[in-house]
């Protein structure tokens, strides 16, 4: 199994997955920085974790849920207030479907 994104194509792949655009200079710099960081982080590969279950969360409990009852909710106008553009009581956003 591969452990490091050494190749330039890997940085491009990761950037695409992350929804980030990198210019050539930044791509080269980040590739070097990521390589250095991952070289140092390889310390965790030497830890024997064969008997360890992963910890996704410090609380090993089921989520605390409130009773399923209607609660007061914010006014529509308050929620729309931060929107840059609104139309007919709806958020108005750039076209997302070509």
């Amino acid at each position: 199994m591969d452990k490091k994104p050494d190749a330039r194509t890997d940085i491009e792949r990761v950037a695409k997955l992350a929804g980030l655009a990198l210019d050539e200079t930044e791509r080269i710099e980040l590739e070097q920085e990521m390589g250095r960081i991952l070289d140092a982080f390889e310390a965790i590969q030497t830890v024997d974790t064969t008997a360890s279950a992963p910890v996704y969360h410090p609380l090993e409990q089921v989520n605390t849920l409130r009773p399923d009852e209607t609660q007061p909710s914010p006014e529509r106008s308050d929620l729309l207030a931060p929107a840059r553009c609104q139309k007919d009581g709806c958020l108005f956003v750039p076209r997302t479907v070509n």
Partner: protein
Amino acid sequence: MLDFNQAAALGQAIAARQVSVREAAEQSLKAVACQKTKLNAWITVDPDQVLRQADDVQRRIDQGEAVSPLAGVPVAVKDNISTRGLRTTCGSRMLADYTPPYDATVVARLSRAGLVILGKTNMDEFAMGSTTETSWFGPTMNPWRPGHVPGGSSGGSAAATASGQVLLALGSDTGGSIRQPCAWCGLTGLKPTYGTVSRYGLIAYASSLDQIGPMALTAGDCRILYEILAGPDSRDSTSLPDSPLPADCKLKAWTGGAGRPLAGLTVGCLDDAAPVQPAISAARAAAIRQLEALGASVEPLAMPLLDEAVPAYYLIATAEASSNLARFDGIRYGYRPDDADVADIGDYYARGRSEGFGREVRRRILLGTFALSAGFYDAWYLQALKVRRLVCDRYAEALRRVDLILSPVSATTAPPLGASLADPLAMYQSDRYTVAANLTGLPALALPFGQDSQGLPVGMQLTGPSFSDRLLLAAGEHIQSAQPVTHCAVDGEVSA
């Protein structure tokens, strides 16, 4: 502020009508204006809104409404905690124009308790940093020595409090972001037990690690503020009921004794070969002497996996961040770029995210995306989660042998501006002593312990078992009863 250096004393004076709420607020606003250029501790302060709050609190006090011992005291709020009607930027261009339509639970609790929200403090962008240099709004300076960083990511809260502009602040701590700036600015700060303080309204960096907590000059003020903040919240599904210490926890029986208030406590002093600055070693020795003088028994404590905890932490934190920050796409949330010549929606997202996020945030999103990506998930993210298990196990074992763990907060005092940004890996590794509390969810308290040869503060850390927050703060109060702590005036004079 108004000759008070503790919030509890100012609260008493306000309750006794010796000081009006408006006077306290105006004094803070004046200090903010005076120190704005020198420290850059704040992102948003709205004086009109502050004075309206002050008058409202005064009215509540005058009408005899039950408020809190801190009613009327101005408080700083880190700018990743939502405040209704007050801009909340996370230190980022991405949210530079965002004004939340609701209050975070902690902010609602402060308001209910009668505290006056003075404004929003500067921070590393999305809390990603250890120096408050990655903010879109420029770096914050350390009031003890401008030209040095205050620490981070809650550096604005620390600088504002250390310089006496406010006596209380809220920070958030994902890997040390309350404790390290407190240490570097001579303050006391608590990273509470995970789940004891609501995260509702905290703009997430890494959800399994983030906690909001109090910052103040003294442990006594932190305790009073913690009591206002803590408690279950139905709006946060990870919020816990007010859980007592487990029955088998030795700390439960701790009562102390006259003249030796820490008698009966065993403190494990982290036995670590990693190099620290001489001032840190001296502070550790002073802390041991003080703990022993107060009656505690101190013994060396080996703690394996400190070296591995840092990469585990960064892989987990950045993985969670890459997911949490995916919502900032310019459509649903965040900075919206000019769309005149975008090729498609993917191009639009990428442009907005690349222009809206700063370099450190982009780096961490990339690292986290990589750790979660197909082909690398098991070797990096899953392995980090398994190392997290081992770190949790080691701390649980240690806290069965000792009651509290003493360690430095950081291996150094505050570095000069720019020194940390030049080497991101070194910045990550400087979190060696703080990340374990976040990986495990344990509470940890940073306490000031002297200064280095340049006059920069040094902090030490006490870590306790889950839900020992109040006992940690009580221990801190005993330590500080024997050791006065000081504010730093920005003109360089120190006020006792």
